[in-house]
């Protein structure tokens, strides 16, 4: 990815002489001017997944122009642009007014860009095969000692991922990351199920009569994920005690319908339940 924090001579369509440092972000106002299209047409391209590629292609065709316009911008990463256009398009589908709310959209795209960069760094660092940076590393590392260190690091990560892979199914991290996967597929109800993986004794009872009590992530306040937001899986406070038991998800421990939070947890089977939602 290019680090494209820059200070353009004049931000496209900014309409001001602001000296605020801006990076290139593919917002509708910028692309409308760049591609010479009406706002409505640009909006249609954002919200139509099959047309987003045309936006990306248009940006790439103007790469040199953009690099000249945005100081410090050396190149445009096409994959990053695809992700940013996707993010912007999904936001506009959820909230068409976002087309006009450029400030908010820029914030969303900025976080998306940061997340993409963070993901890339994490994946590269933890890749036991060193994929992506392997060739660069080979050409860069002449020092055999440093090369040995890199090999050792890769070996360490191979071991770490092997350990994760072979963790028992009832380990909370397994349930948690599977819940994350399901949520990414649109099954928001799974966030509520996450709480059921952790069985914590009631701290008010004696050790000999510990009752295994299902504690929801927030101490019982929330067991489902509202369609409007995804909260962190606020797992139990360790200060409550260490004598917990980890058990696999137990459907018999599922909260009754009356225990569902407000707003109500959507039912599986409801049209759109599994559609990508309000992330």
């Amino acid at each position: 990815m290019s680090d494209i924090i820059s200070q353009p001579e004049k931000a496209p369509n900014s309409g001001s002489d602001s000296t605020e440092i801006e990076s290139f972000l593919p917002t509708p106002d910028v692309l409308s001017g760049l591609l010479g299209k009406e706002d409505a047409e640009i909006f249609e391209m954002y919200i139509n997944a099959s047309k987003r590629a045309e936006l990306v292609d248009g940006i790439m065709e103007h790469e040199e122009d953009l690099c000249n316009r945005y100081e410090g911008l050396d190149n445009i990463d096409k994959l990053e642009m695809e992700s940013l256009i996707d993010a912007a398009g999904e936001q506009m589908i959820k909230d068409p007014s976002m087309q006009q709310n450029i400030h908010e959209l820029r914030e969303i795209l900025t976080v998306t860009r940061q997340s993409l960069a963070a993901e890339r760094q994490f994946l590269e660092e933890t890749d036991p095969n060193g994929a992506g940076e392997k060739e660069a590393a080979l050409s860069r590392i002449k020092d055999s000692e440093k090369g040995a260190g890199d090999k050792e690091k890769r070996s360490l990560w191979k071991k770490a991922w092997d350990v994760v892979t072979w963790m028992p199914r009832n380990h909370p991290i397994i349930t948690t990351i599977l819940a994350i996967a399901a949520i990414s597929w649109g099954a928001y109800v799974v966030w509520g199920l996450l709480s059921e993986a952790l069985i914590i004794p009631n701290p008010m009872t004696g050790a000999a009569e510990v009752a295994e009590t299902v504690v929801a992530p927030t101490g019982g306040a929330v067991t489902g994920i509202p369609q409007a937001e995804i909260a962190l899986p606020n797992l139990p406070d360790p200060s409550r005690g260490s004598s917990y038991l980890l058990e696999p998800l137990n459907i018999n421990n599922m909260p009754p319908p009356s225990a569902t939070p407000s707003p109500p947890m959507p039912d599986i089977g409801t049209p759109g339940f599994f559609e990508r939602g309000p992330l």
Partner: protein
Amino acid sequence: MHMMTELHLTAAETKLFNALPSELQDGWTVVEETQKFEDTDRNVRTRISIIRLKDPKLNAFKEQVKNAKDQNEVANLISEFDLQNVAQPDLAKLFFALGTEPLSKIIQITLPKATTDKDIENVAALSLIRNALLRSFINNYS
């Protein structure tokens, strides 16, 4: 294969480790985790939104989840799924989306319950992953 012998633990977690029986502590070196990062809901939502999983086993699981009749069936599917043969890059993507705070909570509740060297090894792996996550978050979220 490299021997994983280090635990990247915060000061509070180190106290939990030091309270374990000495035979469980043997052979492990605690490296203090000093990195700090405060995640946000927007970061989490964004990370989840950019997940793109390619692993065939996970994609088959996805179809099962999508075809589940109710939440109980989803719960069963999750409880029956294991990570064996799941591609490492997809595992890494899921940890990345999860973030550091839930990982810390899980380390904090599993560490005191450790009874075997394997349990400590699990914590070591999670703490190593958290260490890399913290670095990537601190470097890129500003």
